[in-house]
């Protein structure tokens, strides 16, 4: 089904000449005819030199010349005009834009994409010189996976189609599968000799993917950002109607837009001239950024175990004269939510520690920490120590005294404060890393990834 839009396929699987033949036209929406350079002009751009009317005498004669031109080209009664002046002269200046408002039927079968609606005008013609009777007409779409009946008149057959006559119908099908499709039209009818004849005709077409959607997920603190890049794989520009993110149950989503600089606001014209979101044909892209936040339902600590589904994109677009298309992505997954069973927070850390004597080698200090059980069961008892496996060759901050500290059990969602007595051995900003929490009953090690900084100053 390429080339001209109307197709009469070679009948497949039938024997002998048929009185009937199917003719098919893909009926997408019509298009405004655009004539680039309609070659229509103001008569005075042709009749005289461009500065001719700078001359006062010529200028004085302009109106008489104009009426001569008008009367000649329009005639006394415009309805009786027998010239083709509208092909030469502008009626309005905007006629030169070449979009007179005439619609033109689709001129080729064109490409068809997932999410669009396939619409077809089907005409069954009787080209014989006799009447055919009792016609059962069927039209169905066959794909690799299924057959979808679009029309079936076997319950109430078309009584007759006279010689030279036609029976027309329009079928529609929402395209939800990629790949090879076949429109199968069949007719079962009685010819003039009362023989039952079977006419099948096949019209093949391919369905392609209109868009590729690439997503990236970034987590910054409590906020998840989803970036979606839509690439247009079709041969027409896509006017993006809606690109909505439909969040999963626990998420809320906001589309982030760059602030549009609008110097002129308020007036009607500016409203009308909003720049459309168009994605250019053949590889144009547009990026959308969504800010996702966990929505808390009841207990903030409750979470859907094991689910990292963020949601999916609902995309609707329009092309030529509003021809619609719609797609929905698969579920977009976030980074796996590592739901921590225990949480360690710093409650009180001295910001500056002064070495009291300039040449003192080290100083002791205290940090107050809080350990929380984030599960609904009893955890612990725990041991806490400072891992020595840091990358730095020299350990600057160490635990003072007993290297492993014991902590009692924690109730479900319970927490307790404790002090860690540390010793710093070097001046400057120092990091305290590698605090390890070990659950002695479950034999489970937690690295709460708590990073603290202290400033060791010389007084």
């Amino acid at each position: 089904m390429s080339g001209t839009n109307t197709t009469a396929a070679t009948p497949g699987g039938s024997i002998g000449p048929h009185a009937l033949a199917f003719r098919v036209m893909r009926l997408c929406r019509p298009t405004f005819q655009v004539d680039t350079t309609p070659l229509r002009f103001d008569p005075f751009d042709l009749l005289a030199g461009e500065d001719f009317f700078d001359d006062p005498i010529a200028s004085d004669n302009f109106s008489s010349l104009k009426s001569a031109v008008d009367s000649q080209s329009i005639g006394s009664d415009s309805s009786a005009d027998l010239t083709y002046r509208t092909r030469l002269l502008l009626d309005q200046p905007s006629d030169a834009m070449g979009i007179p408002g005439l619609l033109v039927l689709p001129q080729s079968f064109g490409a068809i994409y997932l999410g669009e609606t396939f619409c077809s005008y089907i005409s069954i013609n009787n080209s014989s010189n006799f009447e055919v009777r009792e016609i059962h007409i069927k039209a169905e779409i066959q794909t690799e996976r299924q057959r979808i009946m679009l029309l079936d008149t076997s319950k109430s057959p078309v009584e007759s189609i006279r010689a030279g006559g036609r029976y027309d119908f329009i079928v529609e099908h929402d395209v939800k599968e990629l790949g090879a499709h076949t429109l199968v039209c069949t007719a079962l009818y009685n010819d003039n000799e009362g023989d039952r004849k079977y006419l099948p005709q096949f019209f093949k077409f391919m369905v392609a993917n209109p868009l590729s959607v690439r997503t990236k997920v970034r987590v910054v603190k409590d906020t998840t950002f989803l970036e979606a890049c839509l690439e247009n794989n079709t041969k027409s520009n896509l006017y993006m109607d809606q690109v909505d993110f439909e969040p999963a149950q626990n998420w809320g989503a906001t589309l982030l837009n760059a602030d549009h600089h609008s110097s002129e606001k308020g007036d009607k014209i500016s409203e009308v001239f909003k720049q459309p979101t168009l994605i250019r044909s053949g590889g144009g892209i547009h990026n959308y950024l969504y800010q996702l936040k966990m929505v808390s339902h009841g207990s903030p600590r409750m979470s859907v175990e094991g689910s990292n589904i963020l949601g999916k994109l609902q995309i609707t677009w329009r092309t030529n004269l509003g021809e619609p298309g719609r797609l929905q992505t698969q579920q977009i997954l976030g980074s796996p939510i590592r739901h921590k069973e225990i949480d360690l927070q710093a409650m009180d850390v001295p910001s500056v520690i002064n070495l009291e004597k300039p040449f003192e080698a080290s100083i002791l200090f205290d940090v107050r920490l809080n350990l929380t059980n984030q599960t609904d069961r009893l955890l612990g008892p725990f041991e806490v120590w400072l891992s020595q496996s840091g990358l730095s060759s020299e350990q600057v901050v160490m635990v003072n005294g007993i290297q492993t500290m014991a902590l009692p059990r924690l109730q479900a969602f319970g927490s307790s404060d404790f002090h860690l007595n540390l010793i710093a051995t070097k001046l400057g900003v120092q990091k305290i890393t590698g605090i390890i929490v070990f659950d002695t009953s479950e034999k489970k090690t937690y690295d709460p990834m708590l990073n603290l900084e202290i400033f060791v100053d010389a007084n």
Partner: protein
Amino acid sequence: MSELDPAPAPAPAAGADPLSKAYGSLNEVSPDLSVLHDLACRGSWLTILDKVIQARPHLSKPHHHLTYFSYNLLSLIKLRRFSDALNQLDSLDHSLDSPNYLYQTYPKHYPNQCGSMVPFILRVLHAELPAKVSGNSRQETLDRLYVLLEFVRGKLVSDILSSTSRALWEKRECFVINSIISHHLSLKQYGVCLDLIKYLIQKSESDGEGDDHKLDHRMGLLSKLGYIQMQYGDLDGAKATFGLIENQVDDRVELRNLVGRNKALIYLVGKDYVSAVREYDECIERDGNDVVAINNKALCLMYLRDLSDSIKVLESSLERIPTMALNETLVVNLCSMYELAYVNHADIKKTLSNWIARVAPDDFDSTCTRV
């Protein structure tokens, strides 16, 4: 064009002012201009080519040659003889800005005139020709049109223009911008089209309320904006634009039909073809020559599965108002319908194309019948 070199001309008769009544009719502007104009309006471009050849030896003034040259070039382009047109344009001895094309260079012919005797259409055709010759040269055409726009605007800042001249140059600015839009439109560069139309609309509004012409101009621009929005799929935008028009029109038939056709389009994109046909019928009732309404009504009938009537609508318009209805788009539509409706569509299209050959203007593109 060697005839255009400065040469002594017969001195005007002493005493009488030869120019006082000189430009009262077209034929006084250039010989047989009235005939040329008439032929052009009838689309008799082949006859114009003959006439130019016959007339050239008898042309006496420099500007006559440029006028005939323009008609000749336009005829070639209208007839899609683009390489001949290119050769013609190349044969011009001087650039369009040469002093050879200034009135004051020939004081004996034009004792009181100064300025350029180049018909403005020559500049336009010079700009448009590359895109006509090859679709790949559209950028060259756009560049030339933007240069032309600067040229026109340069003219408009000068204060020596007569009011007639100024009005013409303002029209020319508008014309060139419209031509630029048409090229951006075919390149599907819609953003820039919107900006340019916005400029034109704001300019027409700043010119004040004005007369019917100005209102028609503005409504025409807004309608076209709506078509463009529809074309790329912004149906809400198009509705808003058409809404602006409805609030401003008066009771003249042309404007009522414009509004009616726009309403029909809104129905059409909403797939309410029955209401669209009703709107188009009202337009055709008011103005039987509304070919846009006729053509679009036929399409709606087809989307309503009424192929027979859609064919009838187009065929009867060709019979009733051939010079109005005969255009390539309507014929393309009719032929698409024939191809769908008739197994023997080749014969039927042949009949149509024979009829077209008898009545059509010379510049009609007969390939639209796909015979």
